[in-house]
């Protein structure tokens, strides 16, 4: 399959912008694996993904991995899966636990950062690190994604360059676990917002939303 064939369903005007974009994804679990798959299909130029976890059976309820990948580091399995989708995105993966020191180094070249962690402490650490080091680059976080249903509660809130996708309400607790549909929706809200930020900024004159 050549590049022209892969992109034949894309609007040709947006392809150069998509192929120039560099997106950082922090975490390769329920959010990160879904975001990466969508952005690879969208034709983003480069994805930089970091995670230190290995795949466990419990991950398969919502994460883009397969039974024969259990036990493998998530970033290695994700790379394997992304390479089966498209060779027109560069994938840079880091098997590492992200912290205040390595985040500014690993993600220094990205246009937009995506928070795709599971634990609230890690979400805050990333957001604070990002806003401190790169206040002018957007960061898209997720908060309140667990359970099922309640589509109406899902939204995107903009606070300067920080965007929050989710319901900002639903806590993880006994009986409310993250599940594929809602996690997938929020992951794709984050991915969809990335496309909006990239394409609206670069293709505003050509875009006519009424015609789409």
């Amino acid at each position, binding site marked *: 399959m050549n590049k022209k064939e892969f992109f034949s369903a894309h609007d040709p005007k947006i392809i150069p912008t998509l192929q120039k974009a560099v997106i950082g994804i922090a*975490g390769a*679990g*329920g*959010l*990160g694996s879904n975001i990466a798959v969508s952005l690879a299909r969208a034709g983003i130029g480069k994805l930089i993904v970091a995670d230190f976890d290995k795949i466990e059976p419990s991950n398969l309820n919502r994460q883009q991995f397969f039974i024969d990948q259990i036990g493998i580091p998530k970033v290695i399995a994700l790379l394997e899966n992304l390479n089966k989708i498209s060779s027109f995105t560069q994938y840079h993966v880091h098997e590492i636990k992200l912290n205040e020191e390595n985040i500014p180094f690993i993600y220094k070249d990205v246009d937009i950062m995506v928070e*795709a*962690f*599971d*634990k*609230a*402490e890690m*979400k*805050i650490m990333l*957001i*604070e690190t990002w*806003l*401190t080091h790169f206040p002018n680059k957007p960061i898209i*976080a*997720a*908060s*309140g*994604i*667990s359970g099922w249903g309640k589509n109406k509660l899902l939204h995107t*809130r903009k*606070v*300067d360059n*920080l965007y*929050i996708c*989710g319901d*900002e*309400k*639903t*806590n*993880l607790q006994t009986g409310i676990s*993250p599940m594929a549909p809602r*996690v997938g929706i929020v992951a794709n809200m984050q991915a969809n917002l990335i496309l909006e930020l990239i394409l609206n900024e670069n293709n505003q004159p050509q875009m006519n939303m009424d015609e789409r």
Partner: protein
Amino acid sequence: MNADNKIMKKITVNDNIIDWEKNMTIIRILKIMNYTFRMLVVKVNGELVNKANYDEFLIPVDADVKVIHLISGG
């Protein structure tokens, strides 16, 4: 401070308008708003306020305060 002045001095917290108070801190705002969650990112007039400064950073009049609650799950 007289009552009239107090009415005029306001801040915005997550799009809710509340009265400004002298020596107002993030801790005080969280109490007024009845925000009991711990996992927060707080911005005042676009600037990040770190957790260590929640009881020291003084909120200016007319401040735009955003409190973002981060919930585990991903």
